[in-house]
């Protein structure tokens, strides 16, 4: 029976819909996503979860990530979808890397702090962060001074 009942997970359609609704918060920074973009991001979000061996239930972190990131000075409407996809991948990779020791909110704060701070909007720089650094930044609430 164990292997017979699959794990329930968020539907990509639900995630896409929640992300689309979040446009009303991000639009004031000139960042909006079309329904097609939201569907693509939801699909890549599901793929990232599968790759990182995680299951998400309840409310997805993707719309919250969009909202937390939207006031960054390093974002442009043309690259919004791409950046959000990269940040989603980093978010779930770091969740696993920190072995569940960082809450969603703490990790979002660190990611956004680093993105707007020392990484200057470069997701490749953010990708080089390791678990001890992330945990230290979360503890000291100083995401802007390190990347």
């Amino acid at each position: 029976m164990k292997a017979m009942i699959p794990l329930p997970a968020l539907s990509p359609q639900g995630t896409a819909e929640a992300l689309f609704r979040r446009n009303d918060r991000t639009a004031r920074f000139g960042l909006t996503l079309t329904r097609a973009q939201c569907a693509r991001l939801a699909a890549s979000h599901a793929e990232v979860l599968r790759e990182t061996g995680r299951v998400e239930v309840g409310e997805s972190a993707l719309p919250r990530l969009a909202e937390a990131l939207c006031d960054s000075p390093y974002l442009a409407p043309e690259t919004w979808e791409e950046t959000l996809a990269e940040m989603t991948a980093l978010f779930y990779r770091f969740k696993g890397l920190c072995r569940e020791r960082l809450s969603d909110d703490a990790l979002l704060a660190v990611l956004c702090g680093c993105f707007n701070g020392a990484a200057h909007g470069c997701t490749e720089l953010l990708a080089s962060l390791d678990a001890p650094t992330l945990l230290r930044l979360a503890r000291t609430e100083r995401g802007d001074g390190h990347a």
Partner: protein
Amino acid sequence: MPELMTVLTAAERQALCEQLAPLLAHRVALYTAHESSSVPVETARALLDGILLHLGLAGTSADSAVRVRAVLSADAAELLAQGERETRRAVLHAYARWQQLVRAQRGKGQRAAHRLPRAQKERRLAPPFLLC
């Protein structure tokens, strides 16, 4: 015995997943203290196993499909709460029985100690450090 998920229709499988999703979401929220919306697959599987156990869906049995259909036709959250109450009651009952057995065994041991030869009785009652 055919696999459960193949016995169920596609609509039933879908309905089962829809019934289990909010229950699992609630368990994940409790497990992470509402701090994380995602958990590793192993953790989610363990949490789901707990739900299935209390719903009477753990293990394989011939009437599993019947049980799934019963769950689908009822309020799964209520069934889960009822299952948890029954498990708690069974655990408390087992614990009380275990304590009863320990007390009985201890009484029997004390009675038997009266019949032991003096040297053996002293050795038995002596603190361990005196026996070295």
